[in-house]
């Protein structure tokens, strides 16, 4: 092997490795991003559920949290790029079924988007009993996706 070809092959190997590394980081980033997103949703849910335990819940606070939840729910479709499932080798609770059954996953995502939007509207009106009901429905939308698509 001449010096020239070996230099070319070294460059090629380096380029491939770098490409692979970039791909790995983007998957890593996607997983980190969605985990942070879901954690934010969890934070908002916790804040709403604790507010609802009070004698006089602050419905404005609930409306603000509902807006956050709805905002995040709109991003969910971007949180699951191909390759960011269990096959990535990175610790994730996302099941492969998300990519195997995209229509079902999209429906489940849509359900949270609809229910969290309703929660925002209901919270804006300030009727605590109605908020409690809609909070349950919104929580149900979480479960509707987590049961089939998230590892325990």
């Amino acid at each position, binding site marked *: 092997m001449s010096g020239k070809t070996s230099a070319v092959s070294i460059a090629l190997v380096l380029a491939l490795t770098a490409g692979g590394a970039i791909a790995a980081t983007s998957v890593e980033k996607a997983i980190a991003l969605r985990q942070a997103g879901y954690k934010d*949703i*969890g934070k908002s*849910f*916790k804040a*709403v*559920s*604790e507010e609802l*335990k009070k*004698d006089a819940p602050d419905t404005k606070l609930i409306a603000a949290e509902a807006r956050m939840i709805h905002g995040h729910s709109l991003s969910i479709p971007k949180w699951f790029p191909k390759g960011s499932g269990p096959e990535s080798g990175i610790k994730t609770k996302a099941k492969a079924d998300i990519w195997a059954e995209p229509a079902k996953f999209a429906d489940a995502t849509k359900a949270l988007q609809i229910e969290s939007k309703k929660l925002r509207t209901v919270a804006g009106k300030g009727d605590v009993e109605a908020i409690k009901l809609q909070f349950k429905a919104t929580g149900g939308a*979480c479960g509707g996706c987590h049961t089939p698509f998230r590892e325990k």
Partner: protein
Amino acid sequence: MAEEPAPRVALWDLPTRLFHWSLVVLILVAWFSGGENMQIHVLSGYGVLGLLVFRLWWGVAGGSTSRFSSFVKGPAATLAYLKTAGDRGAGHGGGHNPIGAWSVVAMIAVMLAVTVSGLFASDIDGLESGPLSYLVDFDMSRRYSEWHELLFRALQGLVALHLLAVAYYWVWKRQNLIGAMITGKSALTLEALRPAKLWSLIVGLALAVGVAWLTAKGFRL
């Protein structure tokens, strides 16, 4: 020739027995409702908390055989008892033997830790949370959840040990501990139970209900 059966003497007072069996029921309810029906899980948790508060009070102001000072022994007495533990036949008068005493203390401590960690816990979606979870942030409440589960595994281990010990006494030492915890009487009782005063029972109940109620309200008055 049939032996004259030894007279059965009072050993456990009624509050101690009621505490024991209610705790059995509530722990089972809490176990099976956990993660399934959180409303029932949380309610049974308040029940367990009340029972534990009562038992702590009863341990200092209850009937003589339930008081910690009467059954918790130092290392020397515990070791001495341990040496006789393999003997057949009841080697110890009724009541908690020195090893059983440490098992009681450990179970109460772990149950308290399980219950308290549950008060601050939250599920992964932030949907269900303990009455005091509002005092900590989401990450912390998730950590409490992990401890809650881990400590419950420890409790399961202690209860398994407890049941094994009861079975061992039944089979090897021919001593029926379960009957004594139901009827309150034992033929082996060396020193009869000196019952507690009624006022002490009332204070204990008030403490138990008060703490459970305040906790359920999240200490928000």
